[in-house]
Protein backbone atom coordinates (compact mmCIF):
# COMPACT_ATOMS: atom_id res chain seq x y z
CA UNK A 1 0.00 0.00 0.00
CA UNK A 2 1.12 3.52 -0.71
CA UNK A 3 1.03 5.44 2.54
CA UNK A 4 0.94 9.21 2.92
CA UNK A 5 4.60 9.24 3.89
CA UNK A 6 5.68 7.05 0.97
CA UNK A 7 7.09 10.07 -0.74
CA UNK A 8 8.94 11.15 2.40
CA UNK A 9 10.49 7.71 2.70
CA UNK A 10 11.35 7.52 -0.98
CA UNK A 11 11.78 11.14 -2.10
CA UNK A 12 13.14 10.21 -5.54
CA UNK A 13 11.01 7.26 -6.58
CA UNK A 14 8.09 7.25 -4.11
CA UNK A 15 5.56 8.10 -6.80
CA UNK A 16 6.69 5.39 -9.23
CA UNK A 17 3.63 3.23 -10.04
CA UNK A 18 1.65 4.91 -7.23
CA UNK A 19 -2.04 4.13 -7.58
CA UNK A 20 -1.12 1.24 -9.86
CA UNK A 21 1.17 -1.66 -9.04
CA UNK A 22 3.24 -0.03 -6.31
CA UNK A 23 1.63 -2.23 -3.67
CA UNK A 24 3.16 -5.24 -5.45
CA UNK A 25 6.63 -3.87 -4.76
CA UNK A 26 8.21 -5.32 -1.64
CA UNK A 27 10.01 -3.10 0.85
CA UNK A 28 13.32 -4.38 -0.52
CA UNK A 29 12.29 -3.50 -4.08
CA UNK A 30 11.25 0.00 -3.05
CA UNK A 31 14.59 0.50 -1.34
CA UNK A 32 16.42 -0.84 -4.39
CA UNK A 33 14.38 1.33 -6.73
CA UNK A 34 15.21 4.43 -4.70
CA UNK A 35 18.90 3.54 -4.77
CA UNK A 36 18.85 3.16 -8.58
CA UNK A 37 18.43 6.92 -8.89
CA UNK A 38 22.01 8.05 -8.75
CA UNK A 39 21.85 11.72 -9.59
CA UNK A 40 19.18 14.41 -9.64
CA UNK A 41 18.95 17.56 -11.67
CA UNK A 42 16.63 20.53 -12.04
CA UNK A 43 15.72 21.27 -15.65
CA UNK A 44 14.35 24.48 -17.12
CA UNK A 45 11.14 24.96 -19.02
CA UNK A 46 11.54 23.77 -22.60
CA UNK A 47 14.55 21.59 -21.83
CA UNK A 48 14.67 18.55 -24.08
CA UNK A 49 15.24 15.52 -21.85
CA UNK A 50 15.93 13.28 -24.82
CA UNK A 51 15.68 13.91 -28.55
CA UNK A 52 14.42 11.55 -31.21
CA UNK A 53 17.31 9.36 -32.40
CA UNK A 54 19.63 10.28 -29.54
CA UNK A 55 21.56 7.52 -27.74
CA UNK A 56 21.48 7.51 -23.96
CA UNK A 57 23.11 5.43 -21.24
CA UNK A 58 20.53 6.28 -18.58
CA UNK A 59 16.78 6.65 -18.10
CA UNK A 60 14.97 9.49 -16.38
CA UNK A 61 12.58 9.47 -13.44
CA UNK A 62 10.34 12.53 -13.33
CA UNK A 63 10.29 13.59 -9.67
CA UNK A 64 8.52 16.91 -9.99
CA UNK A 65 7.17 18.76 -12.99
CA UNK A 66 5.41 18.05 -16.25
CA UNK A 67 6.65 16.78 -19.61
CA UNK A 68 5.34 16.20 -23.11
CA UNK A 69 6.21 13.50 -25.61
CA UNK A 70 6.45 15.23 -28.96
CA UNK A 71 6.86 14.39 -32.62
CA UNK A 72 7.69 16.94 -35.25
CA UNK A 73 6.48 17.14 -38.82
CA UNK A 74 7.58 19.69 -41.43
CA UNK A 75 5.45 22.47 -40.12
CA UNK A 76 4.44 21.70 -36.58
CA UNK A 77 4.91 19.92 -33.29
CA UNK A 78 2.58 17.13 -32.21
CA UNK A 79 2.22 16.26 -28.53
CA UNK A 80 1.28 12.58 -28.30
CA UNK A 81 1.14 12.24 -24.50
CA UNK A 82 2.24 13.88 -21.27
CA UNK A 83 4.03 12.90 -18.08
CA UNK A 84 3.42 13.52 -14.40
CA UNK A 85 5.69 12.90 -11.39
CA UNK A 86 6.47 9.24 -10.78
CA UNK A 87 6.69 8.46 -14.50
CA UNK A 88 9.91 6.79 -15.62
CA UNK A 89 9.71 8.87 -18.77
CA UNK A 90 12.32 7.27 -21.03
CA UNK A 91 12.70 3.86 -19.48
CA UNK A 92 11.74 2.40 -22.87
CA UNK A 93 14.97 3.83 -24.28
CA UNK A 94 16.71 1.01 -22.38
CA UNK A 95 15.21 -1.54 -24.77
CA UNK A 96 14.69 0.63 -27.87
CA UNK A 97 18.19 2.12 -27.86
CA UNK A 98 16.85 5.29 -29.48
CA UNK A 99 13.44 6.90 -29.24
CA UNK A 100 11.10 7.73 -32.10
CA UNK A 101 10.08 10.98 -30.34
CA UNK A 102 11.30 13.77 -28.08
CA UNK A 103 10.59 14.35 -24.40
CA UNK A 104 10.31 18.02 -23.43
CA UNK A 105 9.85 19.82 -20.12
CA UNK A 106 6.82 22.06 -19.76
CA UNK A 107 7.73 24.32 -16.86
CA UNK A 108 10.71 23.47 -14.66
CA UNK A 109 11.22 19.84 -13.66
CA UNK A 110 13.25 17.89 -11.16
CA UNK A 111 14.49 14.56 -12.46
CA UNK A 112 16.59 11.61 -11.31
CA UNK A 113 18.80 9.50 -13.56
CA UNK A 114 19.09 5.71 -13.53
CA UNK A 115 22.07 4.24 -15.42
CA UNK A 116 21.16 1.53 -17.94
CA UNK A 117 23.84 -0.71 -16.43
CA UNK A 118 21.78 -0.74 -13.24
CA UNK A 119 18.68 -1.76 -15.21
CA UNK A 120 20.66 -4.61 -16.82
CA UNK A 121 21.41 -5.81 -13.29
CA UNK A 122 17.75 -5.63 -12.30
CA UNK A 123 16.92 -7.70 -15.40
CA UNK A 124 19.52 -10.23 -14.35
CA UNK A 125 18.66 -10.68 -10.69
CA UNK A 126 15.19 -9.34 -9.97
CA UNK A 127 12.71 -10.57 -12.59
CA UNK A 128 9.77 -9.31 -10.56
CA UNK A 129 11.01 -5.73 -10.46
CA UNK A 130 12.02 -6.06 -14.12
CA UNK A 131 8.46 -7.06 -14.94
CA UNK A 132 7.13 -3.99 -13.14
CA UNK A 133 9.51 -1.85 -15.18
CA UNK A 134 8.16 -3.50 -18.31
CA UNK A 135 4.61 -2.90 -17.07
CA UNK A 136 5.31 0.79 -16.55
CA UNK A 137 6.49 1.23 -20.15
CA UNK A 138 3.36 -0.47 -21.49
CA UNK A 139 1.17 2.21 -19.95
CA UNK A 140 2.37 4.49 -22.75
CA UNK A 141 0.79 2.31 -25.40
CA UNK A 142 -2.46 2.13 -23.43
CA UNK A 143 -2.55 5.93 -23.15
CA UNK A 144 -1.81 6.26 -26.86
CA UNK A 145 -4.63 3.89 -27.79
CA UNK A 146 -7.09 5.99 -25.86
CA UNK A 147 -5.84 9.13 -27.58
CA UNK A 148 -6.18 7.52 -31.01
CA UNK A 149 -9.77 6.72 -30.16
CA UNK A 150 -10.46 10.21 -28.83
CA UNK A 151 -8.93 11.86 -31.89
CA UNK A 152 -11.12 9.66 -34.07
CA UNK A 153 -14.16 10.58 -32.09
CA UNK A 154 -14.24 13.91 -30.27
CA UNK A 155 -14.50 17.59 -31.16
CA UNK A 156 -11.90 20.01 -29.75
CA UNK A 157 -13.78 21.08 -26.58
CA UNK A 158 -14.54 17.47 -25.70
CA UNK A 159 -10.99 16.42 -26.49
CA UNK A 160 -9.69 19.10 -24.12
CA UNK A 161 -12.14 17.98 -21.45
CA UNK A 162 -10.75 14.46 -21.87
CA UNK A 163 -7.18 15.70 -21.52
CA UNK A 164 -8.09 17.63 -18.35
CA UNK A 165 -9.84 14.58 -16.92
CA UNK A 166 -6.78 12.43 -17.65
CA UNK A 167 -4.29 14.90 -16.13
CA UNK A 168 -6.45 15.23 -13.03
CA UNK A 169 -6.71 11.47 -12.50
CA UNK A 170 -3.02 10.88 -13.08
CA UNK A 171 -2.00 13.65 -10.70
CA UNK A 172 -4.44 12.29 -8.17
CA UNK A 173 -2.86 8.83 -8.36
CA UNK A 174 0.46 10.35 -7.30
CA UNK A 175 -1.09 12.61 -4.65
CA UNK A 176 -0.68 15.89 -6.52
CA UNK A 177 -4.23 16.88 -7.42
CA UNK A 178 -6.50 19.40 -5.73
CA UNK A 179 -10.04 18.63 -4.66
CA UNK A 180 -11.40 21.01 -7.30
CA UNK A 181 -8.92 20.38 -10.11
CA UNK A 182 -5.19 20.72 -10.55
CA UNK A 183 -2.32 23.06 -11.22
CA UNK A 184 -0.55 22.80 -14.55
CA UNK A 185 2.21 24.59 -16.42
CA UNK A 186 0.46 23.78 -19.72
CA UNK A 187 -0.22 26.69 -22.03
CA UNK A 188 -2.89 26.83 -24.69
CA UNK A 189 -0.31 26.18 -27.39
CA UNK A 190 0.63 22.89 -25.69
CA UNK A 191 -3.01 21.89 -25.61
CA UNK A 192 -3.31 22.78 -29.30
CA UNK A 193 -0.39 20.44 -30.02
CA UNK A 194 -2.14 17.70 -28.03
CA UNK A 195 -5.31 18.07 -30.10
CA UNK A 196 -3.92 18.72 -33.56
CA UNK A 197 -5.79 22.03 -33.46
CA UNK A 198 -4.68 25.63 -33.95
CA UNK A 199 -4.07 27.96 -31.00
CA UNK A 200 -7.09 30.04 -32.02
CA UNK A 201 -9.24 26.95 -32.18
CA UNK A 202 -8.11 25.93 -28.68
CA UNK A 203 -8.67 29.42 -27.34
CA UNK A 204 -12.24 29.21 -28.54
CA UNK A 205 -12.71 25.70 -27.15
CA UNK A 206 -11.32 26.72 -23.74
CA UNK A 207 -13.71 29.68 -23.69
CA UNK A 208 -16.56 27.32 -24.50
CA UNK A 209 -15.62 25.00 -21.64
CA UNK A 210 -15.56 27.98 -19.27
CA UNK A 211 -18.86 29.37 -20.51
CA UNK A 212 -20.65 26.06 -20.18
CA UNK A 213 -19.28 25.64 -16.65
CA UNK A 214 -17.37 22.44 -17.43
CA UNK A 215 -13.82 23.58 -16.71
CA UNK A 216 -12.12 26.87 -15.99
CA UNK A 217 -8.56 26.93 -17.30
CA UNK A 218 -6.50 30.01 -16.53
CA UNK A 219 -3.24 31.11 -14.99
CA UNK A 220 -1.81 27.64 -14.63
CA UNK A 221 -4.85 26.11 -13.00
CA UNK A 222 -7.81 24.04 -14.07
CA UNK A 223 -10.81 24.40 -11.78
CA UNK A 224 -13.78 22.08 -12.13
CA UNK A 225 -16.99 22.32 -10.14
CA UNK A 226 -18.57 19.08 -11.31
CA UNK A 227 -16.13 16.28 -12.02
CA UNK A 228 -18.70 13.79 -13.25
CA UNK A 229 -19.89 16.33 -15.78
CA UNK A 230 -16.35 16.98 -17.03
CA UNK A 231 -15.69 13.25 -17.41
CA UNK A 232 -19.00 12.62 -19.08
CA UNK A 233 -18.53 15.52 -21.49
CA UNK A 234 -15.04 14.28 -22.41
CA UNK A 235 -16.29 10.68 -22.65
CA UNK A 236 -13.60 9.80 -20.14
CA UNK A 237 -13.46 6.28 -18.76
CA UNK A 238 -10.32 5.76 -16.64
CA UNK A 239 -9.91 2.01 -17.25
CA UNK A 240 -7.00 2.58 -19.62
CA UNK A 241 -4.93 4.13 -16.82
CA UNK A 242 -4.61 0.71 -15.16
CA UNK A 243 -5.33 2.15 -11.73
CA UNK A 244 -5.37 -0.92 -9.55
CA UNK A 245 -5.05 0.32 -5.99
CA UNK A 246 -5.80 3.41 -3.93
CA UNK A 247 -3.93 6.52 -4.95
CA UNK A 248 -1.55 8.31 -2.63
CA UNK A 249 -3.88 10.27 -0.37
CA UNK A 250 -4.30 13.82 -1.48
CA UNK A 251 -2.39 16.20 0.75
CA UNK A 252 -4.97 18.94 0.23
CA UNK A 253 -8.12 17.15 1.28
CA UNK A 254 -9.72 13.81 2.11
CA UNK A 255 -9.57 11.51 -0.87
CA UNK A 256 -12.51 11.45 -3.20
CA UNK A 257 -14.21 8.12 -3.67
CA UNK A 258 -14.44 6.82 -7.21
CA UNK A 259 -16.60 3.80 -6.61
CA UNK A 260 -15.80 0.96 -8.95
CA UNK A 261 -14.66 3.05 -11.86
CA UNK A 262 -11.00 3.42 -11.06
CA UNK A 263 -10.70 -0.22 -10.07
CA UNK A 264 -12.15 -1.73 -13.20
CA UNK A 265 -10.54 -2.01 -16.57
CA UNK A 266 -13.83 -2.83 -18.15
CA UNK A 267 -15.62 -0.48 -20.43
CA UNK A 268 -19.33 0.05 -20.53
CA UNK A 269 -19.86 -2.41 -23.33
CA UNK A 270 -17.85 -5.26 -21.86
CA UNK A 271 -19.39 -5.22 -18.40
CA UNK A 272 -22.30 -7.42 -19.28
Amino acid at each position, binding site marked *: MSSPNEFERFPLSGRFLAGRARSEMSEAERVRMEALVTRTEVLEHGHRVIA*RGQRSDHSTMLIEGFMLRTLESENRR*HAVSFHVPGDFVDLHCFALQRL*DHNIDCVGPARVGYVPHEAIVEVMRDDPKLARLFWFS*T*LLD*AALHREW*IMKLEQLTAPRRIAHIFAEIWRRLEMVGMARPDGFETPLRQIDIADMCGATAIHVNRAVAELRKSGIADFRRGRVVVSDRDRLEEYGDFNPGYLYAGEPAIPDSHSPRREHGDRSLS*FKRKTSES
Partner: protein
Amino acid sequence: MTFPLTGAFLAGRLRDHLDHDDLAYIEDLIDSVEEHGDGVRLAESGVPTEKSQLLIEGFVFRTIETDKRRFIVGIHVPGDFIDLHGFALKELDHTLVSAGAVKLGLVPHERLETVMSERPDIARAMWFATLLDAAIHRKWIQTLEQLDAPRRIAHLYAELHERLDLVGRQVPRALRTPFTQLDLADMCGVSAIHANRAVGKLRELGIGEIRRGDLYTDDWDALKQYARFDPSYLYGRGALKLQDDWR
Protein backbone atom coordinates in the same frame (compact mmCIF):
# COMPACT_ATOMS: atom_id res chain seq x y z
CA MET B 1 12.47 -21.52 -42.87
CA THR B 2 14.50 -22.78 -39.94
CA PHE B 3 11.94 -21.52 -37.46
CA PRO B 4 8.53 -22.16 -39.01
CA LEU B 5 6.54 -20.68 -36.11
CA THR B 6 8.59 -17.73 -34.94
CA GLY B 7 10.72 -16.96 -38.00
CA ALA B 8 9.02 -13.59 -38.53
CA PHE B 9 9.29 -12.46 -34.89
CA LEU B 10 11.29 -9.18 -34.86
CA ALA B 11 12.45 -9.90 -38.40
CA GLY B 12 14.14 -6.92 -40.03
CA ARG B 13 14.73 -5.46 -36.57
CA LEU B 14 16.10 -7.00 -33.41
CA ARG B 15 16.17 -10.50 -34.94
CA ASP B 16 19.47 -9.66 -36.61
CA HIS B 17 20.98 -9.16 -33.14
CA LEU B 18 19.91 -12.54 -31.76
CA ASP B 19 22.01 -15.65 -32.26
CA HIS B 20 20.87 -19.10 -33.37
CA ASP B 21 20.62 -20.32 -29.80
CA ASP B 22 18.34 -17.41 -28.85
CA LEU B 23 16.15 -18.01 -31.90
CA ALA B 24 15.84 -21.71 -31.12
CA TYR B 25 14.93 -20.84 -27.54
CA ILE B 26 12.18 -18.52 -28.80
CA GLU B 27 10.83 -21.13 -31.25
CA ASP B 28 10.67 -23.56 -28.38
CA LEU B 29 8.44 -21.24 -26.33
CA ILE B 30 5.46 -22.00 -28.56
CA ASP B 31 3.36 -24.49 -26.69
CA SER B 32 0.60 -25.04 -29.28
CA VAL B 33 -0.73 -23.66 -32.55
CA GLU B 34 -4.30 -22.54 -33.19
CA GLU B 35 -6.18 -21.51 -36.30
CA HIS B 36 -9.22 -19.26 -36.35
CA GLY B 37 -11.57 -17.76 -38.89
CA ASP B 38 -12.50 -14.12 -39.43
CA GLY B 39 -13.85 -11.93 -36.64
CA VAL B 40 -12.80 -14.16 -33.72
CA ARG B 41 -12.07 -12.33 -30.47
CA LEU B 42 -8.59 -13.50 -29.48
CA ALA B 43 -8.23 -11.48 -26.28
CA GLU B 44 -10.87 -9.51 -24.50
CA SER B 45 -10.58 -6.17 -22.78
CA GLY B 46 -10.59 -6.58 -19.01
CA VAL B 47 -10.25 -10.37 -18.96
CA PRO B 48 -7.10 -11.72 -17.26
CA THR B 49 -4.89 -13.73 -19.60
CA GLU B 50 -2.62 -16.71 -18.98
CA LYS B 51 -1.03 -16.99 -22.39
CA SER B 52 0.34 -14.73 -25.09
CA GLN B 53 -0.19 -15.23 -28.82
CA LEU B 54 2.27 -14.85 -31.66
CA LEU B 55 0.65 -14.18 -35.01
CA ILE B 56 2.04 -16.67 -37.54
CA GLU B 57 -0.32 -16.00 -40.46
CA GLY B 58 -2.98 -13.39 -41.11
CA PHE B 59 -4.04 -9.99 -39.79
CA VAL B 60 -5.38 -8.96 -36.38
CA PHE B 61 -7.04 -5.71 -35.28
CA ARG B 62 -6.69 -4.01 -31.93
CA THR B 63 -10.09 -2.57 -31.18
CA ILE B 64 -11.67 -0.42 -28.52
CA GLU B 65 -15.42 -0.62 -28.30
CA THR B 66 -17.69 1.90 -26.66
CA ASP B 67 -21.45 1.82 -26.46
CA LYS B 68 -21.48 3.98 -29.57
CA ARG B 69 -19.02 2.40 -31.96
CA ARG B 70 -15.92 0.34 -32.59
CA PHE B 71 -12.50 1.92 -33.09
CA ILE B 72 -9.54 0.17 -34.65
CA VAL B 73 -6.40 1.49 -32.96
CA GLY B 74 -3.83 -0.85 -34.51
CA ILE B 75 -3.23 -3.64 -37.02
CA HIS B 76 -1.00 -6.70 -36.67
CA VAL B 77 0.95 -8.64 -39.24
CA PRO B 78 2.72 -12.02 -39.07
CA GLY B 79 5.59 -12.07 -36.59
CA ASP B 80 3.80 -9.76 -34.12
CA PHE B 81 3.49 -11.08 -30.59
CA ILE B 82 0.01 -9.59 -30.40
CA ASP B 83 -0.64 -9.77 -26.66
CA LEU B 84 2.81 -10.23 -25.24
CA HIS B 85 2.11 -7.09 -23.22
CA GLY B 86 -0.69 -9.04 -21.51
CA PHE B 87 2.07 -10.86 -19.62
CA ALA B 88 3.14 -7.67 -17.81
CA LEU B 89 -0.22 -5.89 -17.84
CA LYS B 90 -2.13 -9.03 -16.74
CA GLU B 91 -5.21 -7.84 -18.59
CA LEU B 92 -5.64 -5.71 -21.67
CA ASP B 93 -7.32 -2.34 -22.04
CA HIS B 94 -8.56 -3.31 -25.52
CA THR B 95 -9.68 -6.29 -27.58
CA LEU B 96 -7.88 -8.32 -30.26
CA VAL B 97 -9.98 -9.55 -33.18
CA SER B 98 -8.89 -11.60 -36.20
CA ALA B 99 -9.26 -9.91 -39.58
CA GLY B 100 -9.60 -12.86 -41.92
CA ALA B 101 -8.22 -16.31 -41.13
CA VAL B 102 -5.30 -16.43 -38.67
CA LYS B 103 -2.76 -18.90 -37.37
CA LEU B 104 -1.39 -18.29 -33.86
CA GLY B 105 1.37 -19.72 -31.69
CA LEU B 106 0.53 -19.80 -27.98
CA VAL B 107 3.02 -19.19 -25.18
CA PRO B 108 1.86 -19.84 -21.59
CA HIS B 109 2.80 -17.06 -19.17
CA GLU B 110 4.68 -19.52 -16.95
CA ARG B 111 7.11 -19.92 -19.85
CA LEU B 112 7.54 -16.18 -20.04
CA GLU B 113 8.27 -16.09 -16.31
CA THR B 114 11.04 -18.57 -16.97
CA VAL B 115 12.38 -16.34 -19.74
CA MET B 116 12.45 -13.42 -17.30
CA SER B 117 14.46 -15.37 -14.74
CA GLU B 118 16.70 -17.40 -17.07
CA ARG B 119 17.27 -15.33 -20.18
CA PRO B 120 17.32 -11.60 -19.43
CA ASP B 121 18.61 -10.85 -22.95
CA ILE B 122 15.61 -12.52 -24.54
CA ALA B 123 13.33 -10.83 -22.01
CA ARG B 124 14.77 -7.50 -23.13
CA ALA B 125 14.16 -8.40 -26.78
CA MET B 126 10.55 -9.19 -25.89
CA TRP B 127 10.30 -5.91 -24.03
CA PHE B 128 11.55 -4.21 -27.19
CA ALA B 129 8.86 -5.99 -29.22
CA THR B 130 6.06 -4.64 -27.02
CA LEU B 131 7.44 -1.11 -27.29
CA LEU B 132 7.01 -1.13 -31.06
CA ASP B 133 3.27 -0.96 -30.44
CA ALA B 134 3.60 2.36 -28.65
CA ALA B 135 5.82 3.74 -31.43
CA ILE B 136 3.22 2.76 -34.03
CA HIS B 137 0.44 4.24 -31.90
CA ARG B 138 2.35 7.52 -31.67
CA LYS B 139 2.58 7.65 -35.45
CA TRP B 140 -1.15 7.03 -35.73
CA ILE B 141 -1.83 9.89 -33.32
CA GLN B 142 0.32 12.10 -35.50
CA THR B 143 -1.38 11.04 -38.73
CA LEU B 144 -4.81 11.64 -37.19
CA GLU B 145 -3.72 15.10 -36.12
CA GLN B 146 -2.06 15.90 -39.40
CA LEU B 147 -3.44 14.09 -42.44
CA ASP B 148 -6.74 14.14 -44.31
CA ALA B 149 -8.73 10.94 -44.85
CA PRO B 150 -7.22 9.90 -48.23
CA ARG B 151 -3.70 10.37 -46.85
CA ARG B 152 -4.56 8.46 -43.68
CA ILE B 153 -5.73 5.50 -45.76
CA ALA B 154 -2.62 5.72 -47.92
CA HIS B 155 -0.52 5.83 -44.74
CA LEU B 156 -2.18 2.66 -43.45
CA TYR B 157 -1.29 0.74 -46.58
CA ALA B 158 2.19 2.26 -46.68
CA GLU B 159 2.76 1.08 -43.11
CA LEU B 160 1.46 -2.42 -43.88
CA HIS B 161 3.62 -2.61 -47.00
CA GLU B 162 6.70 -1.73 -44.99
CA ARG B 163 5.88 -4.04 -42.06
CA LEU B 164 5.21 -6.99 -44.37
CA ASP B 165 8.45 -6.24 -46.15
CA LEU B 166 10.38 -6.25 -42.86
CA VAL B 167 9.11 -9.75 -42.08
CA GLY B 168 10.06 -11.01 -45.53
CA ARG B 169 6.67 -10.88 -47.22
CA GLN B 170 7.39 -8.54 -50.06
CA VAL B 171 4.39 -7.04 -51.75
CA PRO B 172 5.02 -6.42 -55.45
CA ARG B 173 1.92 -4.72 -56.77
CA ALA B 174 -1.20 -5.78 -54.90
CA LEU B 175 -1.35 -5.66 -51.11
CA ARG B 176 -4.08 -8.11 -50.23
CA THR B 177 -6.05 -7.63 -47.02
CA PRO B 178 -9.44 -8.80 -45.78
CA PHE B 179 -10.34 -5.22 -44.71
CA THR B 180 -13.78 -3.88 -45.45
CA GLN B 181 -14.54 -0.24 -46.19
CA LEU B 182 -15.99 -0.05 -42.68
CA ASP B 183 -12.72 -1.32 -41.23
CA LEU B 184 -10.89 1.44 -43.07
CA ALA B 185 -13.37 3.97 -41.70
CA ASP B 186 -12.87 2.65 -38.15
CA MET B 187 -9.09 2.97 -38.52
CA CYS B 188 -9.29 6.55 -39.73
CA GLY B 189 -12.01 7.89 -37.48
CA VAL B 190 -14.32 8.75 -40.36
CA SER B 191 -17.74 7.51 -41.51
CA ALA B 192 -18.06 4.71 -44.08
CA ILE B 193 -19.27 7.25 -46.65
CA HIS B 194 -16.29 9.47 -45.96
CA ALA B 195 -13.93 6.49 -46.28
CA ASN B 196 -15.56 5.55 -49.54
CA ARG B 197 -14.97 9.06 -50.86
CA ALA B 198 -11.33 8.95 -49.72
CA VAL B 199 -10.84 5.65 -51.56
CA GLY B 200 -12.32 7.33 -54.67
CA LYS B 201 -9.88 10.19 -54.33
CA LEU B 202 -6.88 7.82 -54.16
CA ARG B 203 -8.11 6.25 -57.40
CA GLU B 204 -8.62 9.62 -59.14
CA LEU B 205 -5.16 10.78 -58.16
CA GLY B 206 -3.67 7.56 -59.52
CA ILE B 207 -2.15 6.79 -56.10
CA GLY B 208 -3.79 3.42 -55.72
CA GLU B 209 -6.91 1.41 -56.36
CA ILE B 210 -8.58 -0.26 -53.37
CA ARG B 211 -10.94 -3.11 -54.17
CA ARG B 212 -12.36 -5.27 -51.37
CA GLY B 213 -9.49 -4.35 -49.11
CA ASP B 214 -6.79 -5.09 -51.70
CA LEU B 215 -4.68 -2.15 -52.74
CA TYR B 216 -3.21 -2.07 -56.25
CA THR B 217 -0.51 0.36 -57.20
CA ASP B 218 2.31 0.59 -59.73
CA ASP B 219 4.29 2.98 -57.64
CA TRP B 220 4.68 2.35 -53.92
CA ASP B 221 7.17 5.20 -53.63
CA ALA B 222 4.60 7.68 -54.94
CA LEU B 223 2.00 6.33 -52.53
CA LYS B 224 4.41 6.60 -49.59
CA GLN B 225 5.37 10.10 -50.55
CA TYR B 226 1.73 11.13 -50.83
CA ALA B 227 1.10 9.69 -47.34
CA ARG B 228 4.22 11.45 -45.99
CA PHE B 229 5.35 8.04 -44.85
CA ASP B 230 8.74 7.81 -43.13
CA PRO B 231 9.45 4.20 -42.07
CA SER B 232 11.89 5.01 -39.26
CA TYR B 233 9.29 4.69 -36.47
CA LEU B 234 9.12 0.96 -37.22
CA TYR B 235 12.77 0.62 -36.15
CA GLY B 236 13.61 -1.35 -39.29
CA ARG B 237 15.04 1.09 -41.80
CA GLY B 238 16.20 4.65 -41.38
CA ALA B 239 17.31 6.83 -38.51
CA LEU B 240 16.35 4.56 -35.61
CA LYS B 241 17.66 1.23 -36.92
CA LEU B 242 19.27 -0.67 -34.06
CA GLN B 243 23.02 -0.52 -33.87
CA ASP B 244 25.30 -3.49 -33.29
CA ASP B 245 25.95 -2.78 -29.65
CA TRP B 246 22.31 -3.40 -28.75
CA ARG B 247 23.22 -5.92 -26.09
